[in-house]
């Protein structure tokens, strides 16, 4: 709709739920079908997200969810149930309608990665966008290793293993893989085997990103992080999703939804929580 003018590029679309499965605990994967996916897959960049609009009309604001991958004509989102909106999504069944936006935001910047290898660091529901990223890096002939952290039960491991050279897993409680967090795991791995990566990409909870940013600064590794913030519109209209970004020696308030969600870690002003 409304693609008549050159600058009118985005739209809202209604997809159909092709399937839904629980990956573990309260984490679900929903698969969505629709004609629009042809356009989406042509344009989408790893790290972009879609707005999911709810049916419960008391909850008006969109829920931003990262694109996990688009495969076999299906858009896959992986999400954790944390509140009203995600609870609603978890109730969708095959055939139900789901209202979405076009892919939004700027994804990971891959222009820096023409060759060499990449380290992908994900925590919990920060992992989904890394799957799409791993696929894209693979397409470009860039080798990648993933370090994935979970509270307890892991998910998306097999999918990542299919694409990445190596996948390391950490769980907080040690129930699976390394007992601890991803940053500890990376440090341990680095000491034992050395860490060779030309670029680090990460998505996950803020404390994890912050610790990773410290580590990467020390090691002089370039790091891109995908941030989260509460949103009003998700497309750049309200400036509701501000993060503090250091650029040109000044701190500037940027919009996660439009200027991000991916930022250079060295430019992020990490507030003490």
């Amino acid at each position, binding site marked *: 709709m409304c693609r008549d003018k050159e600058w009118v590029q985005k739209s809202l679309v209604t997809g159909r739920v092709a399937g839904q499965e629980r990956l573990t605990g309260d984490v679900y994967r929903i698969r969505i079908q629709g004609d629009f996916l042809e356009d989406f897959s042509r344009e989408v960049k790893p790290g972009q997200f879609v707005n999911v609009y709810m049916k419960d*009309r008391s909850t008006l604001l969109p829920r931003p969810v990262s694109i996990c991958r688009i495969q076999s004509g299906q858009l896959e989102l992986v999400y954790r149930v944390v509140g009203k909106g995600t609870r609603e999504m978890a109730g969708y069944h095959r055939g139900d309608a789901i209202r979405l936006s076009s892919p939004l935001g700027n994804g990971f910047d891959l222009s820096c990665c023409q060759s060499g290898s990449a380290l992908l660091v994900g925590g919990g529901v920060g992992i989904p966008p890394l799957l799409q990223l791993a696929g894209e890096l693979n397409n470009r002939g860039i080798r990648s290793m993933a370090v994935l952290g979970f509270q307890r039960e892991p998910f998306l491991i097999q999918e990542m293993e299919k694409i990445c050279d190596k996948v390391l897993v950490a769980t907080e409680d040690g129930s699976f893989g390394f007992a601890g967090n991803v940053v500890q795991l990376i440090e341990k791995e680095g000491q034992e085997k050395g860490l060779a990566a030309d670029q680090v990409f990460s998505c996950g909870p803020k404390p994890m990103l912050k610790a990773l940013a410290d580590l990467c600064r020390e090691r002089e590794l370039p790091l891109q992080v995908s941030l989260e913030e509460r949103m009003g519109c998700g497309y750049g209209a309200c400036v509701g999703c501000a993060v503090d970004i250091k650029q040109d020696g000044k701190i500037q308030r940027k919009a996660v939804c439009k200027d991000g969600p991916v930022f250079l870690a060295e430019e992020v002003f990490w507030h003490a929580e």
Partner: protein
Amino acid sequence: MQNKRKEPDLTVDLAGIWLKNPITTASGTFSPRDSGQFYDLNQLGAMITKGIAPEPWEGNPSPRIAETYGGMLNAVGLQNPGVEAYIREELPYLEQFSPPVIANVVGRTVEDYCRVAEALSDTSVAMLEVNISCPNVKAGGIGFGTDPAMAALVTREVKRISKKPVLIKLSPNVTDITEIARAVESEGADGISLINTLLGMSIDARRAKILLANGTGGLSGPAIKPVALRMVYQVCRAVQIPVLGLGGIRTGEDAAEFLMAGASAVSVGTAALFNPLAPIEILQELKEFMMEMGYRTIAEMRQAFQEGQGK
């Protein structure tokens, strides 16, 4: 009624400016480059841009947004790049589109408002919308819009300096909205916009914390429509100058209600956040509503309401 299927005439006059339809974008919920990715901005009645101060404002820290039942709270804190950047970067882009630009103006002092008004006087901006919901730092942070004398003062000074017609945008957080409306009318305001957001708060019970970094925020969206409609109705009967009505408009019928209550035009705010296509969908629905009911003009629709009401 005849002419049932003929397209209605949607043109309206807003304080001397001709709009091809009464649908405008509420300040702070519209970004030309971003909103324009969803629909053709040329379809709008007017483009009202986000609040502009004399200097850049960084706004409040995050979180700035909280969802509420049927609405939302925002504490963006009027982040804006300042009037110079607005003139340099925003206006030239807006000039590509046909609808008139209404620049929303914010300030912390009367001088702030005047500096913006002055800077915009020789630009392509068609009209100013002066947001007096801001706290007056020289009066201990009391909102300009909550005191008739301060509201009158801002109006007088901005009117003195501005070459553009001036709408004053009122805060609804007052005991008697008509008192403020009369105060700004008497100082020469060309029109009145209302309502701005209601002051609210959200607590995250599970984290036992106030949700917004700023503490309080402005409540907007469908939840507040009845308050907005009441105030628009009251103000339209208290003053002679035209009124731009807004607050919770989400459908074409919502827009019709504000126009019936007496508004000359309306703005779509929060609805455009939860549905980027809202302004043009509302426009289309309004057109269809008027066709179905047999109204040929906005004035005819308003007339029907007034006669039905006996007022």
